[in-house]
């Protein structure tokens, strides 16, 4: 079952882009209506809105172009959610633990059942990358196991 038809998704995105353009233009106008502030935003915003209108007309008249084939949405959404959880947990779990858990969870999600590989690879990758970047970067990173000033 499809959550949303491709045509509706296409139309929704154009409306979203038009709404973003309008919101950004109006909020920029509200903070300052000087030429210095609006010199690029105003003309570019107007052009973007015109292009959105053209695209909406194209889609309503059925002249829109087909959606590129790709992975089904239901296969991508769990991975996107996992990646979101990983990024949002970085400050809480630290790069070392969060990365290890992310890699392990991803491998399990993709059907890897060799536990030695899942545990071994995720720990080695997570720890090595965390140590490498912690040594290379000039500022502290959030960590749980490695020492940090974050």
């Amino acid at each position: 079952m499809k959550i949303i038809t491709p045509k509706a998704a296409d139309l929704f995105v154009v409306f979203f882009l038009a709404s973003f353009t309008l919101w950004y233009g109006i909020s920029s106008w509200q903070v300052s209506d000087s030429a210095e502030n609006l010199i690029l935003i105003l003309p570019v915003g107007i052009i973007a809105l015109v292009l959105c209108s053209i695209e909406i007309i194209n889609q309503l008249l059925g002249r829109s172009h087909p959606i590129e084939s790709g992975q089904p949405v239901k296969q991508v959404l769990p991975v996107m959610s996992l990646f979101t959880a990983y990024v949002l947990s970085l400050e809480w779990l630290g790069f070392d633990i969060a990365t290890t858990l992310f890699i392990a969870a991803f491998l399990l999600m993709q059907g890897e059942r060799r536990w030695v590989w899942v545990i071994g690879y995720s720990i080695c990758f997570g720890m090595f990358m965390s140590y490498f970047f912690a040594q290379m970067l000039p500022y502290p990173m959030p960590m749980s196991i490695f020492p940090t000033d974050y």
Partner: protein
Amino acid sequence: MVDIIDTVAIAEGASLVFSSFEPWLVVIPGIILGLIFGAIPGLQISMAMAIFLPATLYMDFLEAMLFLTAIFTGGSFGSGIPAILMNIPGTSSAIATAFDGYPMAKKGEHNKALGVALGASCFGVLFGYMILFLLIKPISGFVLKLGPSEMFMVILWGMTLIASLRGDSMAKGLLSGFIGLLIGTIGFSGAGVARGTMGNEYLLDGVPVIPAMMGMFAASELFKLINTNYLVEDQDARKVSVKEILSGFKHAFSHPWVMLRGSIIGVFVGAVPGVGSSVSNLLSYIETKRRDKDPESFGKGNPKGVVAAESANSTSEAGSMATLLALGIPGGGATAVMLAAFAMHNITGGPQFIREETDIVYAIIIANFGQVLILMVLGLLFIPLLANIVKVPMNYLVPSVLAMATFGSFGLTGNISGPVTVLVFSCVGWVFSRLNYSIPATVIGILLGSMAEDALLQTYQISGGQLSYLFDRPMTMVILAMLLISLFGSKVTAMLTNKAKDSANA
């Protein structure tokens, strides 16, 4: 000619470089560092140069410059490696490399693609420094004539051209670019007010550009690869072959005009501070596609696309060095670090430097000819190691690259805004690619948005709001004409040809 080339200084420069082996000792580690930092997504050439800048304190000025230019040279090529193997351009100058390099890798032509990139890069660096050798003074004069109106036109040219690449829906392509430009202006404006930040302090400096680029290009592509087994499906095509890398290297030279055109675009557009290398690789790619007999094959794994992009971005190094040496203006992050090295050695770049230290300038240029040979050897040793990426199963590669992009983005911003930007733009990129929007156009828009705004604002201030000012700037009008020709030239020609045919038939 006598005025342009100073033969005495050349002889002195050559003697500085070749009289002892010492200057060369720093070149090999410099190129290796550049290759490593360029090849790891998220680590930047400028970051490598900044990290190792303190080491140059213990070197004399020439050695310091050779070390830093070696990192620059290695990094310029290195950033093309993840563009080809993972669709992650290490820097904005490698965006066009991914257009055909990645499809080549997916077809199992990763060895050839990497070889082609190395060949075109070596030629580009050599050609660029050759032009610098002959024309450093005229180039610096040319750059001095470029004002903000020309900068704005170059930005607009690059962005609209890339937007028009989306042949099936130009409206969507242009919309992607203009939305990118708007996103690029988020944060503090020249008027000192914050726009579109929604009260988020991380956005005051604008959307972090490179993490956005990583999200749009890499993460969105990785989401599409879920449930595939390998980057290259055919097991026989997954092998790493030095022979094929070498044949790719040679193949690059079978398109001399593509390389030459890319290099000429690279050296002159690359000299434009700020936008040079980001735009030159795109212009070269688009020109090559436009002039090719089979433009439809581009974007599907045509080696000429890789040649065009790599020859232009490698030559841009020489272009940006011209502005640094002759004018003391850094064109980007890497040359800004070099300017810091100038300061550390109490040297000021600019016309006076060129006049008084001509031998050093020529020594740097001559040493870079040698660096090409070293890059060739080290590149050929290094590529087979990296090409093994195609042998890694996708269920291991996808989370590893996503995690690397996350680490790298934190490295770029120093706070959590980098990883969050990667996350947000990976989702945007995935939606855009599914619905046929142009990801490169959006990225270029984000990359150049604030720069375009500054250039337009300066033009407005200089002209006092008079449009006639633009007509007094021949270079602006030339770039505008080229922009219009590139956008509509082929359509107008086709229309005229059809009309001529119709009238002939009538």
